[in-house]
């Protein structure tokens, strides 16, 4: 009898243990309360704050709560969650290339299936933006925010002091660089280092490439129709090292590789400024004036000018980028949210923060409080040639791999050819 009960209890124990583990495994990801959605995005700092203002207005209007998940390194986050069958409701995706990858694998819901018709979208966004959020003719991404990446940031009062004129050509920009150097100042700060800041180099390259090889080659290069071993690529990379070298950037090339993106903004526009010029997109304005140094005075201590021309015949095309909101799930809340952020009023709230520029046609210029943001919106709206950020067009995670390759380029300008052919062999057949 006793022995029997012992066995019984042992068996019971084993069964319970097995049962527990089994339930632990089969348990579906806990359902969020019906009235909330999760948005995953790489935005942090001022960009995140701006977005939260929009979501707060959405919650107020609809009662639907928005849970914001931040993921700077968003690809692994999304991949793991997809594999686990637990993606966020909505993802903010900066790369049309990645949107296409996700759409092809069937992970995204098309906007028309969510009630946002092509006609409605075309009423709020220009065809160019919509095309970038599409894959195989279907629309997946709501253009959430746009940025020009063809601006260079400078200090107007310093230009005034040294009687520099805003440069119109690359030669003039180099002359100012040399003049700063001659005065004992460090001309540039570039942050392309730890961790995940290599993308700044890809933006340098893209602006130079668009201005030396032209928009047509640019499109072909970043869509897999032109090889990275083309001489035009090496040429642009070489021009990039005319500025990003040990002479002209803060702490030399290794300083570039040791500095983060925001860190390098601080190097120029922080209270303890160490360099004079900075290149990155329009979003720098918001980060510099809101996060880095609130004492900055737009127009006096911080301003930007359009990226100068390199080849006169190619003028100055605008390289820009946008982040798109795409849905992984189809729920009434998701539909409402996407609908809301695509409206003019939501765009107005968004741009009123000065942190972003809206691609939405219904957002008027006067909605931008800051001159910096207004100028950026104007540049985007009036660009004769607009090119989307090339590295973001590359498939999957190749945008990062390309940044790594450019990190190699600035270290070993003598090896440009072999670095490019290695990269080409990696990306071959991946488009």
């Amino acid at each position, binding site marked *: 009898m006793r022995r029997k009960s012992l066995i019984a209890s042992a068996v019971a124990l084993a069964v319970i*243990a097995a049962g527990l*583990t089994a339930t632990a495994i089969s348990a579906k990801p806990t359902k969020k309360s019906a009235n909330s959605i999760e948005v995953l995005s790489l935005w942090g700092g001022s960009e995140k704050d701006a977005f939260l203002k929009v979501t707060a207005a959405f919650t107020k209007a609809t009662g639907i709560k928005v849970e914001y998940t931040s993921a700077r390194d968003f690809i692994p986050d999304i*991949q793991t969650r997809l594999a686990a069958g637990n993606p966020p409701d909505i993802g903010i995706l900066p790369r049309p290339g990645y949107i296409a990858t996700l759409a092809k694998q069937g992970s995204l819901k098309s906007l028309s299936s969510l009630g946002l018709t092509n006609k409605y979208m075309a009423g709020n966004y220009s065809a160019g933006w919509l095309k970038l959020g599409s894959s195989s003719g279907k629309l997946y991404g709501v253009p959430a925010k746009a940025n020009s990446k063809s601006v260079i940031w400078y200090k107007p009062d310093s230009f005034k002091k040294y009687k520099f004129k805003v440069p119109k050509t690359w030669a003039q920009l180099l002359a100012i660089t040399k003049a700063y150097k001659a005065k004992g100042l460090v001309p540039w700060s570039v942050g392309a280092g*730890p*961790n995940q800041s290599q993308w700044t180099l890809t933006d340098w390259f893209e602006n130079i490439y668009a201005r030396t090889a032209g928009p047509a080659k640019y499109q072909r290069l970043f869509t897999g129709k032109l090889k990275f071993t083309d001489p035009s690529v090496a040429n642009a990379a070489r021009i990039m090292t005319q500025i990003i070298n040990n002479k002209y950037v803060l702490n030399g090339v290794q300083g570039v590789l040791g500095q983060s993106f925001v860190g390098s903004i601080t190097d120029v526009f922080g209270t303890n400024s160490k360099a004079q010029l900075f290149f990155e997109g329009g979003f720098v304005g918001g980060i510099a004036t809101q996060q880095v140094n609130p004492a900055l005075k737009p127009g006096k201590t911080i301003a930007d000018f359009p990226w100068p021309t390199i080849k006169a015949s190619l003028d100055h095309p605008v390289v820009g980028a946008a982040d798109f909101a795409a849905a992984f799930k189809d729920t009434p809340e998701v539909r409402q949210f996407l609908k809301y952020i695509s409206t003019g009023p939501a765009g107005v709230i968004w741009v009123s923060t000065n942190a972003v520029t809206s691609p939405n046609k219904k957002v008027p210029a006067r909605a931008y409080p800051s001159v910096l943001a207004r100028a950026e919106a104007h540049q985007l709206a009036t660009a004769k040639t607009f090119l989307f950020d090339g590295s973001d067009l590359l498939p999957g995670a190749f945008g990062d791999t390309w940044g790594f390759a450019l990190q190699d380029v600035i*270290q070993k300008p003598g090896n440009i050819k072999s670095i490019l052919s290695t990269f080409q062999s990696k990306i071959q057949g991946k488009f």
Partner: protein
Amino acid sequence: MSTQPLPTPVAGPPPGGGLRKRAWSGFERFQGLLFVMPALVVLAIFLIYPAYYTIRLAFYESDFHFGFFHYLGVDNFKELLTNDPDFLDLSKFPPGGALINNLRWVIFYISLSLIIGLGLAVLAVRVRYERAVKTAIFVPMAIAATAVGIIWLLVYNTDSNIGVMNAVWHGVLGQHQVSWLGNPAIVNYALIFAYVWASVGFVMVVLSAAIKGIPMEIMEAARVDGAGEWNIFRRIMLPMLSLPISVVTIWLFINVIKVFDIIYVMTGGGPGTTSRVIAFTMYEETFHNGRPGYGAAVAVIMLVLIAPVMVLNVRRFRTEKVVA
């Protein structure tokens, strides 16, 4: 369940009898199996099955669902070892790639941790404020590796007003500021050093406990016989510490083959791919580049490197008693 007291086996051997090593009956075996069953079930679900799955995956091309897409045979391994300079690059000198970087970690991380840890253990025993010293050195052990990474990002900052390293290097020694994490020749060692800082406390605590286990008489006797402190350390302490040292070494080895977090936080494997290690490559390929099969092949290589050391370790535990 019954609340009866545990039964004493009716047919068991008389207490103190000489039948201790009798063969176990079938029933007892069954009973034993029942008792380990819950643990086995858990182990099978969380360890054995995933391991089997990973090994199988390594021979396939896989997609983001981790499915078995397309059988490749050993192609993943071939590619890794012969055609992926980010993993193994023997074409230049010194050779590069994640595997070689991990070898650097093995050599420098283990030896530095051991030397510094042992030195501190030996010295700490000799001072009155031993506990305070030990606590201070052990504290980093209690910090999460990600936090360690953030701390050292600040320490290595290129700005000498922020980074302690450059404050000393530039401010005190008057050298040019160094980008510790931006220089491919330095970055691996900078990372290793940060990780040594985080693990040396553990080595010290284990070894200093072992030192306390050495009978005082032996050392006293040696001193009476005129042995100097160096000789006592070299000929008495070291041999008597050989077992705890080997245990700690194995712990460090396993730690270093799977090192990931600190690299993820501090460099993301960069600049370029110069500070990648095996575990980081696995993550990068699986989740970033969307090639779980290729990533699984990296994991298998990692397993192959760790397994023999584990076996050795288990054997040792079985045959000897650890003094620590």
